[in-house]
């Protein structure tokens, strides 16, 4: 589909418009900022991934193969903190969101481009501070920083890690703010709310969570820091404080945070399925409203992380019922995607493989979430590997696959190059197999009672643990392969035209890579989203 004779070097686009490190580090172009984020989060993913590899190697032996328990505590804390705050939360919004939101609404940039660049610098500052904290000295409280352990009883780098996360939170807040204002005020003429691509609805819903949830985490970390520094007793039972208050404030953000991780991935899937089934999405408004419903209801369920903390059972009942409710809009989306596939003209390029993988694995993860939302079952599986498996199915099987699917889908637009689809499909398959081999045994071993965050375990669980570690090694190979061919493609891949997938959307109507100002003229939108299957393409 590449235009014959198109020479990427002669046409001016956002990648070659300016050269030099200053033009990248001082850019306000949302597309360049997206690439800055892409590089950063890939780096953090590698760091968090190394921690995961070490954990899985350690857990081959029941008595722990390599590390002392104190070190193991630091490893899983590092894995959680880095992966959650510095990979998953920014991944799709900061990379694909930054790149695509202005293009999808038909604007030249986000509402506040300089604020966008500031967001990246804030992110890097927080990230590097946290990286220092978890690597030099380490943090051993888990990514959840529960009190009074984190405030009173450990002498690890809790303060600097919490401060790093606090700083990075402002990056999220500013990004969310930018997206909300852009989507409200900068849509092209004719782009009504219900003509927007569903990716934008998901980003909008995610931004609501950024805006309303992250500040609560920020103030909670401030309180933890003050308690550590001044030994004041806000969460200290000795003075009348209540550790559970910390948990309420922490999870008020951190539960919606998991929807920050999954909603954008759902948005990506909503773009991929219609394109690769050549069919308009089934139930557009249901999917759109479900995105917002997920964002809203996600704020009502945080107590399901606290069923066994000492929280009142009556509050537990309320949170349990609401947790069942939050599954409904997610399920609606899955049904709509499936209905879109029905009688579609399906092709299985790499992005589609990731989208289909998402649907299956997210469904499994989501259903096990219902197990956990049930008070009686949670009593048995809380703090076991069942929970670990549940959230990895959603975060890795769901969010990461959504991220990879999106990267593979929009790669030609971002770089102007195509990657070898054969290798991409192979990698997707290896990731799928490796993922299931890693995490399905964890459901089993968790249900059988193996606790999480323990450096040792009873020997009867060894077979399943070894299976899980073996799967992790396969998963690692699966993640390494795209790094190779994607980087290779930037130099040697065939030139992509404006729309190699034949997809619908304003971003596909620009050249690949797009010019700095996105559009020669601001487009006027006249058709509905996903107008696939129209007589004239």
């Amino acid at each position, binding site marked *: 589909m590449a235009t014959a004779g198109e020479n990427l070097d002669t046409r001016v686009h956002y990648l070659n418009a300016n050269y030099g490190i200053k033009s990248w580090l001082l850019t306000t172009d949302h597309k360049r900022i997206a690439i800055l984020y892409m590089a950063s989060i890939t780096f953090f993913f590698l760091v968090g991934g190394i921690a995961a590899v070490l954990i899985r190697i350690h857990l081959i032996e029941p008595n722990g193969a390599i590390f002392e328990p104190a070190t193991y505590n630091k490893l899983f804390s590092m894995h959680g903190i880095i992966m959650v705050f510095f990979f998953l939360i920014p991944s799709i919004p900061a990379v694909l969101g930054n790149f695509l939101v*202005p293009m999808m609404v038909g604007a030249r940039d*986000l509402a506040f481009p300089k604020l966008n660049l500031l967001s990246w610098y804030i992110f890097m500052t927080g990230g590097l501070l946290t990286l220092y904290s978890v690597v030099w000295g380490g943090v051993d409280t888990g990514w959840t920083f529960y009190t009074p352990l984190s405030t009173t009883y450990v002498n690890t780098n809790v303060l600097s890690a919490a401060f790093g996360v606090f700083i990075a939170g402002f990056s999220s807040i500013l990004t969310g703010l930018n997206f909300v*204002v852009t989507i409200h005020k900068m849509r092209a003429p004719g782009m009504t709310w219900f003509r927007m691509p569903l990716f934008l609805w998901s980003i909008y819903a995610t931004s609501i969570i950024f805006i309303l949830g992250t500040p*609560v985490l920020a103030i909670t970390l401030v309180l933890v820091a*003050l308690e550590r520094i001044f030994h004041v007793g*806000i969460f200290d039972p000795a003075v009348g404080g209540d550790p559970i208050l910390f948990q309420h404030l922490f999870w008020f953000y951190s539960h919606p945070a998991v929807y920050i991780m999954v909603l954008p991935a759902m948005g990506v899937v909503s773009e991929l399925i219609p394109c690769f089934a050549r069919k308009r999405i089934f139930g557009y408004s249901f999917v759109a409203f479900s995105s917002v419903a997920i964002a809203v209801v996600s704020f009502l369920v945080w107590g399901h992380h606290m069923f066994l903390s000492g929280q009142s059972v009556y509050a537990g009942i309320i949170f349990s019922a609401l947790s069942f409710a939050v599954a409904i809009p997610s399920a609606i989306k899955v049904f709509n995607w499936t209905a879109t596939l029905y009688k579609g003209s399906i092709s299985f390029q790499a992005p589609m493989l990731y989208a289909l993988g998402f649907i299956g694995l997210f469904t499994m993860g989501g259903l096990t979430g219902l197990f956990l939302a049930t008070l009686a079952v949670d009593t048995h599986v809380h703090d076991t590997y069942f929970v670990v498996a549940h959230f990895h199915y959603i975060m890795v099987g769901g969010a990461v696959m959504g991220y990879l699917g999106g990267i593979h889908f929009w790669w030609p637009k971002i770089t102007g190059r195509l990657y070898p689809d054969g290798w991409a499909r192979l990698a997707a398959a290896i990731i799928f197999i490796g993922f299931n081999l890693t995490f399905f045994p964890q459901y089993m071993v968790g249900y059988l009672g193996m606790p999480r965050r323990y450096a040792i375990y009873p020997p009867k669980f060894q077979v399943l643990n070894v299976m899980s570690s073996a799967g992790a090694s396969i998963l690692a190979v699966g993640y390494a392969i795209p790094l190779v061919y994607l980087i290779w493609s930037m130099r040697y891949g065939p030139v992509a035209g404006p729309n190699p997938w034949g997809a619908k959307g304003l971003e596909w109507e620009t050249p690949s890579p797009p010019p700095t100002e996105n559009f020669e003229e601001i487009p006027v939108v006249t058709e509905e989203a996903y107008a696939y299957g129209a007589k004239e393409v």
Partner: protein
Amino acid sequence: MADSHAASPLAHQFEDLEQQQEAASLGMWVFLATEVMFFGGLFAGYTIYRNLYPPGFEAGSHMLNVTIGAINTAVLICSSLTMALAVRAAQMGKRNALVTFLILTTALGLAFVLIKLTLEWRHDYLEGLAPGLNFTFAGPDAKSLELFFCFYFIMTGVHALHMMVGVGVLSVLLVQAWKGHFGPNHFNAVETAGLYWHFVDIVWIFLFPLLYLIGGRY
């Protein structure tokens, strides 16, 4: 008449000045929503503990000076008035009025922080009421009184920090206004700073009764 800035005020990503102005306002309101939740975490914690330990919290509240608190409230309300008048002056292109009102607002904000630091916090510290530093109160309900003072210092401290940020922003705007940077078509920055300033005032409007007037003073 006072517009002396060289570049066009319209940023490249916007189609017209109206869109730019609306985006700036919406952006500031969304930011204020995040601030509501930031302070909200403190209000939530305060509400919980206030209802768990009424005697200690009332005792703590009674140790605060209502007169100073009320004066500070009045200072902030005055500063909100001058801020609103500053925005109005910018809207009308009146450079001198704008500068004057910005100076007054900044001064009142600084006065608030100074009163708080020198008359209230210093006094509380000298009385041995600073948790973590020198808390030595040893009457009944000492523990929950300490908890009250934790929240008192943290909430007023975070508020004062926001006040100082506001003072900083207004100082920058002051210099720009004096140079004639703002005009009837170009005063977004003043308006959005005004929104921030009024918000910080609103937070204090709630902090004053919650901290100083709990349970009444009869």
